[in-house]
């Protein structure tokens, strides 16, 4: 296989990032390792979003529909049916894929803003349902889960890191394969891609299913790590905004960029916590500055081609 300069850069970069992430918890306090664990789950959300936005050309304004379904399905099964954590995570993930395919994917056939609108509305509907069925879901307060992934902070950290590695591997594999090329062509100019003989809806559905799978999986694992499932962690609009901001400042169309963006968002958010109500605004302003000076994001600076 022939490596272009940019893919050699990417390989070096991924290796360095992986080594750093593997070694990091040896030097850090449990508290910070815990925070990084959340950031790792969050980066799977962001990568899944980038697959759709950066390659498939679809702006998903409702990533938390997929995440939330995965998380709440897993949590409900754990609380009400008492299934083991592993089974809950698996079924939650499948529910997210199924719900995405049934409710959102049909909009992929339409041109224009329908996909954005449907994804946004789907989140609002999900949020309403959680409130309406508060006796099962805990409503605004959320629900506490009896099951946990692991009691050990280290195990939890490496579980999250393993998920990041698997999903990044799958996404990078897809985007550098012929499918990735066809997806990008369809995003750039759907009619031109169709006129090279590609049924681009098929490819968009594939990308969407993968995005739904990893969003749901990460959402389900996250609630079992946190021990609670609540709207503010996996559904609310502010989570959506954080995902989008993280993907863009990390560097869209790079898959690994969003990992950096997620770490950046979560870490600066924590670091600026003493600002109280202002922390969110401060992160947003920082993100804006990065966007203004480096429109290709953090990864864009590192992986610059020319």
């Amino acid at each position, binding site marked *: 296989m022939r490596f272009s300069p940019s893919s050699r850069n990417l390989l070096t970069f991924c290796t360095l990032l992986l080594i750093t992430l593997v070694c990091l918890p040896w030097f850090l306090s449990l508290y910070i390792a815990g925070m990084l664990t959340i950031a790792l789950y969050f980066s799977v959300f962001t990568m899944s979003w980038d697959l759709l936005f950066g390659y498939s050309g679809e702006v998903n304004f409702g990533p938390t529909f997929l995440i939330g379904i995965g998380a709440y399905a897993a949590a409900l099964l754990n609380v009400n049916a008492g299934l083991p954590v592993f089974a809950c995570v698996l079924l939650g993930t499948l529910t997210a894929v199924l719900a995405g395919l049934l409710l959102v994917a049909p909009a992929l056939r339409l041109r224009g803003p329908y996909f954005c609108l449907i994804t946004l509305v789907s989140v609002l509907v999900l949020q309403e349902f959680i409130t309406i069925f508060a006796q099962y879901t805990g409503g605004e307060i959320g629900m506490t889960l009896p099951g946990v992934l692991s009691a050990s902070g280290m195990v939890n950290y490496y579980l999250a890191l393993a998920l990041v590695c698997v999903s990044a591997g799958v996404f990078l594999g897809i985007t550098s*394969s*012929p499918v990735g090329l066809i997806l990008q062509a369809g995003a750039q*100019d759907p*009619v031109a891609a169709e*006129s*090279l003989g590609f049924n681009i809806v098929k490819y968009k559905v594939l990308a969407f299913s993968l995005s739904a799978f990893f969003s749901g999986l990460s959402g389900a694992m996250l609630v079992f790590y946190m021990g609670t499932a609540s709207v503010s962690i996996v559904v609310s609009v502010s989570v959506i905004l954080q995902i989008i901001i993280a993907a863009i400042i990390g560097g869209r169309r790079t898959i690994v960029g969003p990992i950096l963006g997620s770490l950046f968002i979560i870490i600066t958010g924590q670091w600026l916590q003493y600002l109280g109500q202002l922390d969110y605004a401060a992160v947003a302003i920082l993100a804006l500055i990065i966007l203004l000076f480096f429109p290709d994001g953090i990864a864009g600076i590192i992986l610059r081609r020319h």
Partner: protein
Amino acid sequence: MALLEVSGLNKRFGGIRAVKDVDLSVQEGQIVGLIGPNGSGKSTLLKLLTGVHKPNSGSIRFDGREIHNWPINKRIKQGMAIVFQHSRPLHRQTVLDNIKLALLPDRVFNIHYPGDIEAKALQAARLLGLEDVVDAYPGSLPFGYIRRMEVAKALALSPRLLLMDEPFAGLTPSEVGELAELILSARHEKQAIVLVDHNVKAVYSFVNRIIALYVGAKIADGEPREVMANAEVRRVFLGKSMDEGQILQPSMASEPGGDNLLLDLDIESLKYGKAEILRNVSIRIREGEFASIVGLNGAGKSSLMKAVTGLVNYTGDVKWRGMSTKRMTTAQIIRLGIAFAPETRELFHHMSVKENLEMGGERLNRHELEARLEDVYALFPILRERVAQPAYTLSGGEQQMLTIGRALMQAPSLLILDEPTLGLAPVVLEAISEALLKLHQSRGLTILLAEQNLHFALKLSNSIYLLDHGSISWHGAVADFVQEVGDKFLV
């Protein structure tokens, strides 16, 4: 059996019949050019063949199968290929990767590139003379190479029928010749080609058959020489026939009023991306003059009008009463007293006729506004009957009148009209022509007209500029035009 068999094809957009009962058949190995003035339906016809639009009725048989309802990708798998005028290649991939894309099978679980794809893509690149740029990124290449890359992609599919939309648009005359030769040498002799292009000269030398369309219907079909000699084809391209001598009546237009120079235009170059649309164009318009820019479609007329009104960037300068307008915004230029009636009309579709007119006269006071409205209604009485109707419910002719009326509401010193005759019936043309004559002669309004309908332009103007591939190839008085240029205008 013909490779492509079209019968009774119809396409409507709202109330407009863009394609009317068109029949045609294309045999293996034929190269067919679709020509026609703007609005003739040739692009729509091509879009029906490619599948970008679906017909309202009629049949398209390709290789014996009925395909009029097939999606684009299915047609491609059946043996068609398409080259679009406006291509957006993948800019993060090299030319070679862009060509590889065309060679991939349509399978979702296609994780590895086929082993021979590199060699095949290189071969496709070589056929179009792209071997030196395969590792370059499309963004760094001149426009002509991008077009060649698009053709290479289409030919890489080994189609039996290649459909091309304006393959020569935006290319310089020498690039046109090069591309035509490359396509002819790269294609397999059994491959058929159907193309649409505004550049009639390029089509003429490239094809072995021409189909001429006018307002959606086929008016001629045959050998290029026959078709171009056809009286009806000449009439639709030139307005009325040159041979009938009817245009030798330029006396209807009065002589230019004063020596006051209103517009002094010198454009060195106007480009869209990498395509150069205008080169070294100079035009001077005196107060009271009626000047017309004539030329075939794609010659650059509309771009020239947009340059005057500041809607596009250019190098050079446009002076209004001696003052440069280069740094002004469109709004500032309009306030100098230049009113623009664009080719696409740009009416406010959901506003009524009166509201549209009032938008034009927005800077007038109540009294002036009423007087101006009366003026416009006097010029186009039909608009008075339609005052309360939304603009989109008007017929094409009424919409054109409204466009001109709205421009007049701005109380302009110069009225710029871009193809007001587009797609209009002769009787409407007559009404618009009379109105313009009245404006020019009895009110002394200065008018700049861009027009493809030569008859219409010659009847009204004092001076003529002939625009050919982005340069002025002739200019002077109307009477001289007929003698010196005459019917050499077309081919």
